[in-house]
């Protein structure tokens, strides 16, 4: 028997090769499987066949929707201005929501005083159907971009706030004692333990918020706007222009997919241990 300590083998197969694929589809986001593609083709064909037998104001047809979409993006009815207005509102709103949500989340997660002071209001607001604030916003702020951005922020704030607060509490028990035993200063503790520890929680919240801002921009533009994707949706809906409506719908949905997709990729890059830990347990 030697003095040296024996070495265990690390299970190579756990994190290489085939497993990556399982991880991607496990998140329920990609349409990579062939089955899904076939299903999509079948649905489109059925839609085309059934849609052409009916008045186009009901479900329209994929071909009509495509033609309208093309016209909106590259043809005579370009709507880039509306897309740009919506995108600006959405991303400004998202940025504010992420910053504000993180700050409030950290405050509530770290400080007992802040938690007991703010928790009742936060629970109240979180339980309120936020859409009802829209008319109020229009009265207080006016029918303008500011009102819409404020609404988007209020809608998208919660996932970040609640996740960051939960992350703080999780990090507190597990890791801060470690830092404390190592003798880290308060500042080092925040920089080296709390911020990286909370990051995956922040990203989880941010992913949900990135989906919510699309809802927020569309809903607020439907109510308090004369421009933007939401406004177009509302006016096409009232004019029974179903193909156009669905084309705008497709554009809005793409924003959601792109937002969530980008944040999923960022999470996987910045916090790869989250996926691994979940699978490991």
């Amino acid at each position, binding site marked *: 028997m030697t003095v040296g*300590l024996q070495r265990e083998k*690390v299970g190579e197969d756990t*994190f290489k090769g085939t497993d990556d694929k399982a991880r991607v589809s496990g998140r329920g986001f990609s349409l990579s499987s062939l089955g899904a593609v076939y299903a999509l083709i079948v649905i489109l064909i059925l839609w085309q066949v059934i849609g052409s037998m009916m008045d186009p104001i009901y479900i329209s047809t994929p071909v009509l929707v495509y033609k309208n979409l093309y016209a909106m993006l590259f043809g005579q009815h370009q709507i880039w201005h509306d897309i740009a207005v919506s995108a600006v509102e959405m991303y400004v709103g998202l940025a504010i929501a992420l910053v504000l949500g993180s700050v409030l989340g950290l405050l509530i997660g770290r400080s007992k005083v802040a938690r007991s002071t703010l928790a009742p209001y936060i629970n109240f607001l979180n339980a309120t159907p936020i859409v009802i604030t829209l008319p109020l916003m229009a009265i207080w702020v006016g029918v303008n971009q500011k009102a819409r951005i404020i609404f988007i922020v209020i809608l998208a704030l919660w996932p970040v706030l609640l996740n960051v607060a939960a992350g703080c509490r999780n990090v507190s028990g597990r890791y801060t004692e470690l830092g404390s035993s190592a003798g880290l200063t308060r500042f080092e503790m925040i920089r080296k333990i709390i911020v990286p520890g909370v990051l995956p929680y922040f990203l989880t919240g941010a992913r949900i918020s990135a989906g919510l801002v699309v809802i927020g921009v569309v809903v607020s533009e439907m109510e308090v706007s004369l421009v933007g994707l939401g406004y177009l949706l509302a006016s096409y809906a009232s004019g029974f222009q179903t193909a156009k409506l669905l084309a705008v719908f497709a554009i809005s949905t793409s924003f959601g997919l792109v937002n969530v997709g980008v944040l999923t990729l960022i999470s996987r890059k910045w916090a790869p241990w989250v996926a691994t830990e979940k699978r490991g347990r």
Partner: protein
Amino acid sequence: MGAVDNGCLLEIKDIRKSFEGDKGKRNLILDDISLQVCKGEFVSILGASGCGKTTLLRIIDGLIESDSGEVILEGERVGPAQRRRMAFVFQDSNLLPWRSVQKNVELNLEAMKELSKAQRSERAIEALRLVGLEEVASRPPYQLSGGMQQRVGVARALARQPVVFLMDEPFGHLDNFTRERLQQEMSRLIERIGATVVFVTHDIDEAILLSDKIVLMRSNPGQVSRVLSVDLPRPRWKYNVRAHPTALALRESIVEELGLRIDDWEEVGGIQ
């Protein structure tokens, strides 16, 4: 402060600690705990779950404060300077997933501003070598098995080169095979580097294998019920310690003291 040099490195005097319990009343967890740890000694604190072992260790390391009593290291009351000379090994290895194994070990050195970056990394590698893990230094910890993670936890403490190690059931969460092997490795390592260790466990055989002295703790409130010395030759091996007459006798008296006191049984409703 009159430091009486009786060869004791670490002295714990009359530690009391209570926590807020249900309905606002305070639960006394530690009741006048005193013990002494000499240089190079391996002292186990052995007691049932919930008797306050972790709390005691946290008080020694200054992670929480006691209600009264004092902890004295090398003749001085424990303050920031003393805390730097102790190293804690946690029950779950608690490795930071965003740091590589080596960076996790280095975390424990980052408050030691007198060390350069190169020195920190050198010390970390050396500590990892001691536990046989220098080859996985650049891996993220979540790719390691539970046993390896726990060894990184030990390496993290080794890197500090402390005068006292505080270990809180470091093998408690491991499966039997891994635990047995790590116990044996720990025994070798400690004999080799001559470390002073306060080791918390609820495993009687583990305590006998590793310790020079066993402090038995009673629960509710946590009190020292007896201190036993383990007069077994070193180096010790699991298989020959287990059957050694001294170990058997020791085990007998520990079981009697901790497990089979009739008044304890009555408290839990007696034997039906």
